Every structure is written in C-alpha cells, then in structure tokens.
C-alpha cells in the first residue's frame, strides 16, 4: 500500500510538472498565432513604431550622458566561481584520543589532542546554460591515522527557469532537513557539529544522490515547500541503509538494498521566513524523513525536526555588525530495529545557540545541547544521555579568514568520569571567489 502511494505521488509530481511546462509553452504560441483583424494589427504596428522612436530618443539621451571615457566592459562577473577554503584546528581534551574520537563524532570535528586538518573544500559553481546552474564541492581531510581522504561532498544542478515558483535540484547533495545539515563546516558558528546531528546523520551530514522539487508558494511572505527522494544507502545516510557491519542500538546492520521506490529515502521540508521588523527576521521550519533501515529487511526509520532562527541586526550596522542570531533545532528519531523480535528505538535531542557580533569582526557564541534515548543506553556512545555547553569567541580577521577559540564542557554517561573538558583553536582561510554572506 505504502509502495503504491509513494510511486503514485512521484509519478503525479513529474507528470504534473511536465504538463505545467508544456501548457505554458503552448499558451504562448497560441497567443502569437491568434488572428487579429488587419486593421487592429496595423494600429498596433503604428503604436509600436511610436514607442520605438521614443525609446530611440531615450537611448540617444543615454549616449549623450555618457562621457567618452565610459569603457566599462559589459561582462558579467566571471561565469565560474572557484574557491578553496581550509579549516584547521589545534587543541586538547581532558580525555584520551580514543575517548575523544567518540565524543567528537562529527567527521570534520577536531577529534585528537594536537592538530587536526578539519576540512579543505574546493568549490566550483556557475551557470551551465539558460536552464541550469550547477555546483560541485570536493572535500579533502586527514583522518587521525594521517591518511588523506577525498570525498565528492556535493555535485548537483538546480533549474533556473521552471514556471510557478518551482525548482528542481538533482545529483549528490545535502538533504534539506533543518537549517544546519545543509551548511558546510566553514560556515558553522562553532568548531564542531551538534551532537544530535552526528547521532542521526553521521559524521558527514545527511547527503545522497537523488532529486527534489521545491515550490516557492504564492504567499506574501516567504514560504517554501521541498519534497525529495534520495538513495537511502551508504555511510552518509546513517539512520537508513548505513554501511553493512555498522551498529545502531546494538543491532548490526545488514547489506540491505533499496529494491523499489518504497525503499527510497523521502524527505519533506517547509520553511517560512518573516521580517518581524526592519531589524529582526525569523525563519521557522519543519522537516521529515522517511526511509528503510538496515537493521532488518522490513524495518523503517522516521526522523522529524523543527527549527527556528531569529536574527537581529542593528539599523546602523558596519560590515553587518552588531547582530544577534539565535538558532535552535529539535530532532527526534523512531528507528524500527530487527525483523524477528522487533524493537522501536526512540532518540531525541536539541541544540540551541546564540551568536553575538558585538563589534565589527568579533563574534561571541554560546551553545547548549542535549541528547538522549529510550532504554538502557548508558554505554552506547551515540545513544547515551549527553549534554554539552560550548562558549566560543571568533575573530573574523577579514571576509576571507577567521580565528576561533572554543571551550567544550561535556556531560556524557559513557565517559569514565562522566565529564570532559576540551579547548579548541580553529583557523580558516579562503582563496578564490568571494564567498556568500550567510544569513
């Protein structure tokens, strides 16, 4: 039944899109070829000639206004944007490297005493043609063994011209779930990934191959609905068909394959944006994920989330400062485990963080996190009761580099002493194209 419903939904979506597109094209053609009475047509032509002469007059005025020194080339800013950003950390913790690796579960988190190369990202983006924009992000990082790992983090296209406020994205990309999952490490407000995201989406965030359609709704304020389908298999789809041999809640994962459309990862997100005043803006979002998991042959996972983002910026701001940004996300997961003796694992958690840009280039941050799960999970590093408090201070030396100092206080049941203290110093540089200012 489920299977029927989903494939039906996707069919309707695609055929609806096609119909919409062809309708708008044929309507335009019909308009052109409509036969008007000859007289009317002549009148229109005369009118058009009138307009043309007036427009020519305007053109002439513009040319006269030009001094002869105007030689600005009309070239658009280069069609290809290429950038490389490097993120490095150094620091230490009250616990040893083995324990630290479990505590800092994010793939780009600093997770060893000493130096960590967190992330070197090569990003290439541009407009393909009249129909598509495209972007690829390649990641280089070094694991604690000193091996260089290269990942094709993202490679996707987005459409430019679909009617009705629709946009399709396809390829390998970060799933639009919540606010943080889509963000790349160098745009984070903290040196590490929130605990609950590492637990549900693994070290590298939730990303996979697939396609999604998003609809900018015809409302006065910003409101966007996104529906997507992605492959559920691999290390970057942790709560679903994660790599065989991995372990979730004591259940060893099998090599389950996605066999039909009901075995895909389905995602939905609604995001709304409201300007509460000239200086205060709000984003509210809800997201959902549904797909199979590899703890059994018939087991499914559901993840739901809600996120809130509020940003205040002073009316008279210099370089965007001062500002206060408050970002919170709440997530919960329902994980059906095992085929024979089925158990439902329930996990939840949230993080809430405030960034205060108190003077140009300087940002103070504070993050509080809480994650827990049902059952006796005290020895499971990814399901135990866990809290973390992280104050930090960042100095953006320019638009292209930053230095950040962060302290983490961890409370985790699985730790021998139940607590851990860590201090991290982070440096970022970026080369190449001007990076986007994040909202």
């Amino acid at each position, binding site marked *: 039944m489920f299977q029927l419903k989903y494939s039906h939904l996707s069919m309707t979506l695609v055929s609806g899109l096609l119909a919409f597109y062809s309708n708008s094209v044929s309507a335009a053609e019909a308009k052109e070829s409509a036969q008007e009475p000859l007289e009317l047509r002549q009148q229109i032509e005369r009118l058009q000639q009138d307009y043309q002469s007036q427009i020519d007059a305007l053109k002439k005025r513009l040319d006269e206004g030009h001094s002869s020194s105007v030689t600005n080339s009309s070239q*658009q800013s280069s069609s290809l944007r290429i950038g490389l950003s490097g993120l490095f950390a150094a620091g230490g913790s009250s616990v040893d490297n083995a324990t630290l690796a479990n505590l800092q579960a994010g793939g780009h988190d600093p997770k060893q005493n000493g130096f960590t190369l967190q992330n070197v990202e090569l990003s290439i983006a541009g407009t393909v043609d009249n129909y598509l924009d495209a972007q690829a992000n390649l990641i280089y990082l070094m694991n604690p063994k000193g091996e260089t790992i290269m990942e094709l983090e993202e490679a996707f296209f987005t459409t430019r011209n679909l009617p009705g406020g629709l946009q399709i994205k396809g390829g390998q990309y970060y799933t639009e779930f919540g606010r943080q999952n889509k963000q790349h490490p160098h745009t984070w407000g903290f040196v590490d990934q929130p605990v609950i995201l590492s637990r549900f989406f693994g070290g590298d965030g939730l990303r996979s191959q697939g396609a999604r359609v998003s609809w900018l709704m015809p409302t006065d*304020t910003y409101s966007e609905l996104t529906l997507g389908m992605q492959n559920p298999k691999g290390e970057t789809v942790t709560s679903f068909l994660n790599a065989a041999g991995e372990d979730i809640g004591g259940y060893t994962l099998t090599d389950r394959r996605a066999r039909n459309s009901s075995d895909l990862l389905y995602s939905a997100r609604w995001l709304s944006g409201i300007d509460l005043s*000239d200086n205060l803006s709000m984003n509210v979002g809800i997201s959902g994920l549904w797909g199979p998991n590899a703890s059994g042959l018939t087991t499914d996972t559901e993840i739901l989330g809600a996120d809130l983002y509020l940003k205040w910026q002073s009316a008279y701001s210099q370089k965007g400062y001062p500002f206060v940004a408050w970002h919170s996300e709440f997530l919960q997961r329902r994980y059906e485990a095992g085929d024979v003796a089925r158990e439902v694992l329930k996990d939840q958690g949230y993080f809430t963080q405030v960034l205060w840009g108190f003077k140009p280039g300087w940002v103070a941050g504070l993050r509080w996190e809480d994650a827990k799960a049902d059952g006796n999970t005290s020895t499971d590093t990814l399901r135990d009761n866990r809290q973390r408090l992280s104050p930090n201070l960042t100095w953006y030396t320019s638009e*292209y580099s930053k230095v950040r100092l962060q302290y983490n206080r961890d409370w985790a049941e699985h730790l021998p002493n139940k607590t851990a203290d860590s201090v991290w110093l982070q440096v970022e540089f970026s080369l190449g194209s001007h990076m986007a200012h994040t909202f």
Partner: protein
Amino acid sequence: MKITYKHFLWLLSFTIMSGSLHAALKVETTTQDLAAIAKAVGGEHIHVHSLTPGTRDPHFAAAKPSMIRKVYSADLLVVVGADMEIGWLPPLLQSARNSRVQPGNSGYLDLSEAVPLLGKIQGPVSRDMGDVHAKGNPHYWLDPRNGIRMANAIALRLGQLDPEHVTEYQKNVELFEKTLNTKLQGWKKTLQHLKGKPVIAYHRSFIYLAEAFGFRIVDEVEPKPGITPSAASLAKLITRIKNEQIDLLIMEPYYERRSARYLKEKTGLHIAVIPQSVGAQEGITTYVDLFDNIVSALKVRGVN
C-alpha cells in the same frame, strides 16, 4: 456551495485588483538610492522596493528569505554592480527562480555599466590590498552627474519593458535631469570653499563626491580599504594631517567614531558625518534630499 451575487462581486473586485497590480511594473533595487531614482523616473507606473535599507553598508547584506520572495515577483532588478552585491546577490538570484531578472536578460539592469567608473585597479590585484574592487569603485551614485546617467539608463529600460508609458518616463527623466542640473549649480556654490582642499575620508567611498565638488581625498582612516585602523596607522595619519594642514575628515554614519574622535583630539580637524545613501538618515527620501543633506553636512563643519 451556492454561488451568490456577493461571491461574484467579491471575485470580480479581486480580479480587478490583481489586474491593476499587474499593470504597474514591479521594480526591485539593491539600494535605496537606486529605488529613489527609479521612483523619480517611473512615477506611478512602477512599484519600487529596495532590498537593503540606506542605513546599512550594502556590501555586507545577506540574502534573507524575504528577499527571495521579492526578487521572485520582480519585473526589473536594478543593481549597483561593480561587485558591490557580490556577497549576496548570486545566491539570491539562484534561489529566486525568476529568469526575467537573471544577468543578461531584460529584467536585469546593472547601472555600473551606465557610468564612468573611477578607481579601476591597474595591474595585479591582491587581497593584501584590502577590500578593493578591481572593476572600479562602486560608490558612483555620490556624484549627481552619475545620478543623471543612472536615471537615463533606468528610463530607457522602463521604456523597453513598458512601452505604453514611455512618454511619461521620458518626461520624468527630463524633469529629473533639469532639477538636478539646477540644484548642482547651487550645491557647487555652497561648497566652493572646499575646492582643491585636501580631505581625509574614513573609507575609500567618497572619490565620486570629491570629483563632483572638486576637493581632494588625500588619505583614508582605514590603512587599507576595509581594514580597521591600528594605533600605528593612526599615528602616521596624525603626522600627515599636521604636516599638510588637513582640516576635514568625512565618514559614513555607520563607521565607528572612536578613531575619528581621536584624530580630532590630536589635530583639531573637523569631522563631517555624511549620509552616504537615501534613507541613511531620517528625512532623506529622494536623490535630491540626499545631496541637500550631504552639502549641508559639508557646509557646517565642526558640528561633531
């Protein structure tokens, strides 16, 4: 549901309303200066809205979701160009899914192509030089003569997009040009005392204003564009101010005042806080208002 007469009337009025909304061109601009000029040219035939307020530095805006909605429904997007909006316009255009206003199409108007840009960098450009714009300095709206060029470029584009009202656009732009030319004579007269005078600016953003009114900007408070002054760079500047007897420092309202006050304390030079944009201060709603206020800020020195 039974369709009643009332429903019908409601539907009719809704249709008429949406029809009349469609009649006016929707123009989005990246700054309030561009919006003010577009309003002067387009009059009642366009709806104009600025994506950023004049109180803020437009270079450092971020693409807010509400902007996506605005750009999505725009018929014309007018930008400063010359990399002024590079940090936020490309991602905004990618999310806005409106092909009319994509660069190269008729709904995208880059006004930096309508004016002679100053401060183009000859030779290699390095980020070590600070926040420089290789294509030229983007603060060109601060020369009233460029305002006239911008108005003409907007009028031409509006005429092409909406030929029905081309006569009015032409009339409006002629009036705008005439008013501004008359005003300019007066402004120049008021600021005659500045002619040829050396002036310090906080940021490299007043070269067009200097060009228009004939004063010379000899140095900036920022050691390099966008770089916060240090004690050493301020000390160097103090020596220069004393040696060359520089009397005036001009700056935008949104920059920190501490460095300026320090320089004033040490050298006695005057500080003029200049509204750099329409909307930067209360009461500045038109392009003419902007220069009225700039001129009076430059005229009455030593207020701070």
